[in-house]
């Protein structure tokens, strides 16, 4: 399947590069529909290996790359279930998204996140599975989960710890503050900064460069450099589920859902 057009994302394959574009309104919130289509993409990667050597993940939404998990869906679907069924439901979702993230993380391609605007929560976690992050200079990165009484649940902490110093990880997590692209580059998170509106162009040029290399060599280098922190990822799911059952989380989610602001967890 060299190309795909879904409700939340699409991909095309051109000149050895797969471009996966997120396009769900308002800002690519990751819920069950996105998860299903990400699973389709992950399953297609084996076939796509014959046609491409690099993957770019980007967004067509003006608001940004991705605002994170679809908290409205999480709240409403959870509320619709009897209390004893809520946790198994959440754990099931997390297990599925972790499988997709781990597949993308280890995929035998050079993977590039081309990000702009909001790169928050689950969106940040999706960018972190990529080998490189190319950021529009107006991009902002944030893990706001603690504001809701949760931790990131799509692999964020173990992957941040893999890539950055622990002090930076603590700063981002324990303050929940957002940082701009220049700061993200200065701490080693972003490989290249692009002018406003130019992240995809820069990512394409980067992919074209990566495509010049021998594939087996690039894959060997990637496997050597980028191990998946599986034990910590498992722990993350357990901690998230432990926190999720607390009344404060339900209250935080309810407030979020009732807010009419574009990004209610921001000041």
């Amino acid at each position, binding site marked *: 399947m060299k190309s795909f057009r879904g409700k939340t994302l699409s991909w095309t394959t051109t000149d050895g590069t797969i471009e996966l574009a997120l396009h769900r309104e308002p800002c690519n919130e990751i819920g069950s529909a996105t998860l299903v289509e990400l699973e389709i993409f992950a399953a297609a990667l084996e076939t796509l290996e014959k046609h491409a050597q690099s993957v770019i993940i980007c967004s067509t939404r003006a*608001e940004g790359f991705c605002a994170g998990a679809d908290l409205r869906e999480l709240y409403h679907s959870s509320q619709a279930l009897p209390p004893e069924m809520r946790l198994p439901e959440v754990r099931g979702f997390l297990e599925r998204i972790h499988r997709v993230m781990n597949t993308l993380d280890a995929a035998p391609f050079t993977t590039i996140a081309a990000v702009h*605007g*909001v790169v928050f929560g689950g969106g940040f976690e999706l960018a972190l599975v990529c080998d490189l992050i190319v950021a529009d*200079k*107006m991009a*902002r990165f944030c893990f706001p989960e603690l504001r809701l009484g949760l931790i990131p649940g799509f692999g964020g902490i173990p992957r941040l710890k893999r890539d950055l110093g622990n002090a930076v990880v603590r700063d981002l997590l324990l*303050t*929940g*503050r*957002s*940082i*701009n692209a*220049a*700061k993200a580059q200065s701490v080693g998170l972003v490989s290249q900064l692009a002018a406003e509106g130019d992240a995809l162009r820069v990512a394409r040029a980067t992919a074209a460069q990566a495509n010049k290399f021998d594939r087996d060599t690039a894959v060997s280098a990637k496997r050597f450099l980028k191990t998946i922190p599986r034990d910590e990822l498992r722990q993350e799911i357990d901690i998230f589920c432990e926190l999720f059952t607390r009344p404060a989380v339900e209250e935080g989610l309810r407030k979020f859902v009732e807010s009419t*602001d*574009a*990004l*209610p967890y*921001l*000041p």
Partner: protein
Amino acid sequence: MNSIDQTTEEILKLAADHFKVSREQLSPGDDFFKKLGINSLQALDLLTRLEQHFRIELPDYELQGVTDFRTLAERIQSRL
């Protein structure tokens, strides 16, 4: 270093330019959410532009409850 008045003026000019309003329509005491008609997402965009303009880092939690240009200038001033 800028005076608070200079900082406020630079913020007003930058906001007027970016959000396409006349500088004369904006005053230091204005509520920028209402006057510029922006939501929190656009406020975040403004924050990034201000960080770039003043070459500072301003954590968004410091802007909690800040709605007027003058107080915004004070927060920025404390980082210059």
